[in-house]
């Protein structure tokens, strides 16, 4: 009898002990050793503040991460917090497995401190926020003052024409010196679009591929001009760059082979690791012949699954993640731009020279108009493959620029854009 009582007591302790432990399962997409370390550190801090809560982090390889998430979410496998990038938000939200964060956002203090435009960007799908962005990504011009000054170039290019001129000046294949750090594979869409749209002055702020009159940019003669300019820019890049992705780009820039690079702020974290301070700087994106440049605000954040059993706790983690201190830590180490305005005030790092390119663009509304990709269009993911392949064909001389523009226009018309 005594033995039985002891066993029952032990069982009771086990049950109570287990019931106090809550486990949240979260999955990240943009996995890298550096990023995972920062993420684990933030998770530990949250766990320390919330006894009895454990967060289990799943870190699949980046290449297969989305497919894993799609399958896990569609099968309603245990998952509470899901990383969502801007380019896949609509796809995930359309599955109906992401929780609308609007009720939480309405009550949260955080909302009023979010950088303007962030929440609108998060409402890409049906005007509802299905994620809370934790960082923003805007491309700017990275340059190597030490390299370009050797060729008598100071300051860096302010216009696209200047950029091409500089790049031509810098290109000396015989000594392995080139101008532009080109991107040929792994989503090069954002790079070509920055160049091509800079030839316009009437891009729709709500869709990068439409003019303000509702017509597609690809049918406008300025698109042809922009595409031909892009081909010229490619001639100042190593030929090999048609096969370059992010890693090759960063490597070429860090080694000084290509001192001009368009990239996102998460490149900063990596460059700070491998380059000496002051050997690279940022400047606003060069303005095109249209007198403007049209960057897009990219973002990534955390969403909560609609079937999560711990929705409130998951939201508590999201709020913790976006608290000014943690957001500053995340963005500083990872290199992205914070989403909370207070971070820019409390942390002088984000006002440093490294971030000059972005701050200058944000302050110059006359020349920099932020626009959006048609991310809510089902054809978006298909577009990236078509765009990459046809663009490569144009650069290799296998396809005429006019032909590529027609293919692109037809593609988007079929997808329902530019029917006006």
């Amino acid at each position, binding site marked *: 009898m005594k033995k039985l009582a002891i066993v029952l007591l032990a069982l009771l302790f086990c049950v109570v002990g287990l019931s106090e432990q809550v486990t949240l399962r979260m999955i990240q997409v943009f996995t890298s050793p550096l990023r995972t370390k920062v993420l684990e550190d933030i998770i530990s801090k949250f766990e320390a503040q919330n006894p009895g809560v454990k967060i289990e982090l799943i870190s699949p390889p980046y290449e297969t991460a989305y497919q894993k998430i799609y399958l896990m979410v569609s099968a309603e496998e245990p998952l509470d917090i899901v990383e969502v990038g801007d380019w896949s938000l609509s796809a995930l939200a359309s599955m109906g497995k992401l929780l609308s964060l609007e009720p939480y956002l309405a009550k949260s203090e955080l909302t009023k401190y979010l950088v303007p435009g962030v929440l609108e960007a998060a409402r890409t799908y049906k005007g509802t926020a299905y994620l809370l962005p934790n960082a923003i990504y805007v491309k700017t011009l990275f340059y190597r003052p030490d390299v370009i000054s050797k060729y008598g170039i100071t300051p860096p290019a302010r216009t696209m024409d200047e950029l091409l001129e500089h790049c031509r000046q810098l290109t000396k294949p015989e000594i392995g010196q080139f101008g532009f750090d080109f991107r040929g594979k792994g989503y090069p869409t954002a790079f070509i679009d920055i160049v091509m749209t800079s030839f316009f002055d009437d891009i729709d702020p709500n869709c990068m591929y439409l003019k303000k009159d509702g017509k597609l940019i690809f049918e406008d003669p300025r698109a042809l001009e922009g595409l031909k300019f892009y081909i010229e820019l490619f001639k100042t890049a190593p*030929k090999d760059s048609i096969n370059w992705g992010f890693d090759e780009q960063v490597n070429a820039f860090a080694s000084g082979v290509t001192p001009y690079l368009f990239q996102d702020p998460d490149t900063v974290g990596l460059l700070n690791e491998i380059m000496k301070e002051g050997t690279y700087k940022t400047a606003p994106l060069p303005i095109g012949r249209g007198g403007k440049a049209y960057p897009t605000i990219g973002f990534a954040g955390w969403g909560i699954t609609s079937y999560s059993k711990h929705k409130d706790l998951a939201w508590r983690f999201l709020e913790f993640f976006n608290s000014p201190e943690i957001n500053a830590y995340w963005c500083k180490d990872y290199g992205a731009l914070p989403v909370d305005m207070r971070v820019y005030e409390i942390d002088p790092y984000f006002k440093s020279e490294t971030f000059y390119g972005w701050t200058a663009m944000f302050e110059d509304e006359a020349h920099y108009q932020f626009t959006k990709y048609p991310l809510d269009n089902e054809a978006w993911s298909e577009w990236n493959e078509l765009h990459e392949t046809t663009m490569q064909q144009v650069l290799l001389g*296998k396809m005429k620029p006019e032909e590529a523009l027609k293919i692109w226009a037809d593609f988007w018309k079929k997808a329902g854009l530019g029917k006006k």
Partner: protein
Amino acid sequence: MRKRLWVLMLVPTFALIFFVNLYPLVRGGVISFQRLTVFNLNNPRFVGWSNYRAIITDPGFPRLLWNTFVWIACSVAFQFLFGLILALLLAKPFPGRGLYMGLVFYPWALSGFAIGLLWSWLLNGQFGIVNDILMRLGLIKVPIGFLSDERFAMFSVILVNVWYGIPFFAIMLLAAIQSIPSELYEAAQIDGAGVFRKLFYVTLPYIRPTIYSTILLRIIWVMNFPDIIYGMTRGGPAGATNILSVHMINIVYYRNNFGLASALGMIMTAILMVFAIIYLVLLERGEFEL
């Protein structure tokens, strides 16, 4: 009782075949007739043959087929040729053979995708060590775009695949060569046969079953092996190295269109069935028996 036991013992095998082979095949077949993208993952709809039509009428499809043919033919032919040479060289004992075999066979132990990434850096037109060596030797004046020049891209990925696949042929053929009775060579020696006669009249006929089965297996594996190309070029530049299996990954990776990818998978299965039938016919004829 004995009869029931016999049936029971077969259950695990049938269960394994069902879950590992049959179910995925049937499921893939069903999906190939559906519009199933990430946008309607829980609500697929039947679209008949339209996924198949989309693939076959794609203007790039003939090139995909040709690339796949070149990839298989060149890879398997050179893997076999060099694998045979290696096996013949390793057949006779020599000092340090164990160490040498270990070094020669190690590529087979590596992951295909990792090899692809490794070689994409080695062959990089800007920073690659291969270009550096060629330039230092004075063989070239400007770096070669191994992976960015359409003329070299397919050659480069095949070269890496050959490097990767030689050990498999060598291991298989070496095992077969070592099983040849020494009396046959002694008899050939007495008859005055030289090295080449011994090779063509003793070695090759004796290991013919191994050669047939290994080549057929490799054709199937190489066709279904996108790892190296994916790691090196993702099928580029401009589709120059795009083969069916890489294209299937790109359809899933970029478009998230599982119906289309399954249709392509079924087309690949149909092509591979031809080789499977050849294999079965040869098996039936006793070509794989010594």
